[in-house]
């Protein structure tokens, strides 16, 4: 039951964090991907298979919240979870530079997948602009605190995340 409430709190936290990111996007022009950070958190702390499912569900959530083509983010985050999931357990996930590196890799992979989706599906838009270059560091910068907070929210009774 405690775990269930923790997931609810984590979900609410992500929705609110996405709202904050959307507001920041108005000022800065760049929107850090909160759901990508949550997927990376699952990759680092939960494992390969959960990362795929979590990425898919978070992608659906992102598709609901953002004016994108429905299913585009689901495919992107599921793929990110699947590809980066192979790296689970190979690094110390508590190290910030590991988290940042994973976020940069996830962001780059996400951009690649979105580009491929745009090529395959005409309704998926992909902006070839300076934002694409700035997105990975922005995701890393905003994603590390999100991962840290998620690790605190979803801390297990034995103290591990």
């Amino acid at each position, binding site marked *: 039951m405690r775990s269930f409430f923790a997931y609810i709190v984590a979900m*609410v936290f992500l*929705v*609110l964090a996405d*709202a*904050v990111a*959307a*507001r*920041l996007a108005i*000022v800065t022009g760049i929107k850090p991907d909160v759901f990508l950070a949550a997927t990376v958190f699952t990759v680092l702390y939960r494992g*390969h*298979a959960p*990362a*795929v*499912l979590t*990425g*898919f569900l978070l*992608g659906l959530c992102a*598709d*609901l*919240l953002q004016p994108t*083509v*429905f*299913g*585009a983010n*689901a*495919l992107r985050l*599921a*793929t990110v*979870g*699947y590809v980066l*999931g192979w790296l689970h357990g190979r690094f110390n996930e508590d190290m910030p530079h590991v988290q940042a590196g994973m976020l940069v890799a996830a962001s780059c992979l996400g951009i690649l997948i979105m580009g491929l*989706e745009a090529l395959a*599906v005409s*309704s*998926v838009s992909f902006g070839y602009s300076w934002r694409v270059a700035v997105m990975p560091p922005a995701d890393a910068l905003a994603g590390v605190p999100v991962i840290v907070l998620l690790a605190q929210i979803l801390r297990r009774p034995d103290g591990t995340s």
Partner: protein
Amino acid sequence: MTVREFLRVHQATVRYLGCASVSVGLLSVSSAETVQAFRSIAAYFLGLTQQPVHRVVAYPSDIAGRLMAAVYATDENERLRDLAKRMHVYKIRAEQLEQDHARMRAVLGTRPTGMGRLLNARVQRREPHQWFNTLIIARGKRDGIVPDAPVLTDRCMESVQIIGRIWSVEEETARVLLITDPLSGIPVGIAGKTAQGVLLGNGTPEPTIEYLLPESDVAPGDRVVTVTLPPGIMTGNLDVGSVVSVELSPRTGFKSARVTLAGNISVLDHVLVLVP
């Protein structure tokens, strides 16, 4: 290796293939109305939670915006002070104009003595293909407008000139039949003379007075005014225009006179209606 073992070993791959298939399926039906409706419902409920967050996040930027505005406050204050001074002058001038206008209205009001009150009406609609025929004013039964009431213009401030009469009345609007319309017929006379006739429209800015007796003394330049005929509602002594030319029709035996209108019938943004 059994299927169960295969699925357990390749759990992530199987899950990914399933998720990817569903995603591709969603991409192919993303424009479906059901999907869009579902998204709208979700956005509605999620929007409720996002609004407070937006406010909280926006607060610091609002503060920054106000601080930036404070820097320019002095300049803006100067500009507003200057504007306020000018507005004060405009206000005094507007009050003077209002007084002048009221005085003019009083003068105009006394011109058609004892014949009711003048009601200002905005021209609501005037069809291009009926420019010299009819127009619609934004006054109706509710304002006391009655059929056949004279419609005047006061573009020339020295006097009012008749330009038509009320043809039909609705609750909030009324249609005016202009004196230039071929259906229009108004009893008119020559100011200072006994000659009388009927001013008939012909679709041009110069209607004609018909049925003038051959012996009537009508000459170009004579002022044409309306005459009161019982039981009509048309009020007498309203300025119509002046005679341009007079000719005798050998066929009918009557004289007819072409009249140039005193009121500018081409440009009408508002009119006056003489209501009982």
